[in-house]
């Protein structure tokens, strides 16, 4: 009883704060400050049509580097938590209910899903999307494959290699930015050029970085899901 009363009190105070915030909110009518700078100069400085991508990969690319590091750490901690003992590793569990139609349809769909993921991260500077979304779509394709054949094993070595190589390459491109451009992870390299605005090969190194981020995120999320799927074996 007392607990319910306290909960109601906490919620009411939050509600009061939010009501005040809501009442004093004035909708914006103009872009101000740094947003105006990005909107005005983003296309000419970075060359990306999608300004969100310009902010994520070029103006604030340190954030992105930190973000993929966080995902990597999450994958590492989860694989530490859900580590199987040797006898569980070889256990076979019976998966029920996979129909032939789902198997065949997944064989047809998976290449198309992977293609769409690749399209999303290669065109990240022109259309909505980018590395994170593309990586998530690729991981969903892997999930569809697991759903169709539950006893399929994902090759762990391939995942680790894809992840490490793409991570290292991102850092190398960042260091190239110090040498050829204005600083670490600068996407406008001298001599590389920005390309024609609105085409696939434009915007400096943004498509390259975002493709690598996409591969890395796809590998990391596949790793997390693979760990969860394997943990079903644990007794």
């Amino acid at each position, binding site marked *: 009883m007392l607990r319910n009363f306290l909960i109601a009190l906490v919620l009411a105070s939050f509600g009061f704060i939010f009501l005040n915030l809501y009442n004093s909110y004035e909708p914006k009518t103009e872009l101000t400050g740094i947003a105006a700078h990005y909107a005005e100069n983003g296309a000419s400085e970075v060359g990306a049509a999608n300004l969100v991508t310009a902010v994520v990969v070029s103006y604030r690319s340190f954030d992105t580097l930190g973000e993929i590091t966080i995902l990597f750490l999450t994958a590492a901690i989860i694989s530490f938590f859900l580590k199987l003992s040797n006898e569980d590793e070889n256990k076979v569990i019976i998966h029920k209910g996979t129909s032939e139609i789902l198997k065949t349809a997944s064989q047809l769909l998976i290449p198309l899903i992977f293609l769409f993921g690749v399209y999303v991260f290669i065109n990240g500077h022109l259309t909505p999307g980018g590395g994170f979304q593309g990586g*998530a779509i690729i991981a969903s394709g892997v999930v569809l494959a697991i759903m169709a054949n539950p006893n399929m094993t994902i090759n762990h070595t391939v995942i680790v290699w894809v992840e490490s190589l793409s991570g290292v390459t991102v850092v190398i491109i960042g260091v190239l930015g110090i040498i050829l451009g204005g600083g670490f992870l600068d996407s406008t390299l001298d001599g590389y050029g920005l390309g024609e605005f609105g085409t696939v090969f434009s915007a400096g190194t943004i498509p390259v970085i975002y493709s690598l981020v996409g591969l890395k995120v796809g590998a990391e999320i596949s790793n997390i899901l693979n760990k969860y799927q394997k943990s079903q074996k644990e007794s």
Partner: protein
Amino acid sequence: MIYSLIAIGIGILMLIMAVIAILNDKLSVAVIAAGVVSLFASVLFLLMAAPDVAMTEAAIGSGLSTLIFFYVLNKIKRQNA
């Protein structure tokens, strides 16, 4: 104007779904309802001119999170049996 009407409709649906997610006793129903909340949130993001965020929410917030929830539920069911 028309956007606001769509937003109000979808917002009411989202709130009902959120309350179902919290009050329902069955865990699987709660997880599905939370997934529906995320999916409708992605329509709202699209209305508010944020297609990047909408795509991320649909792919990561709704799809993959729901999948992990179901792995855990399946594990719990298997250990209870």
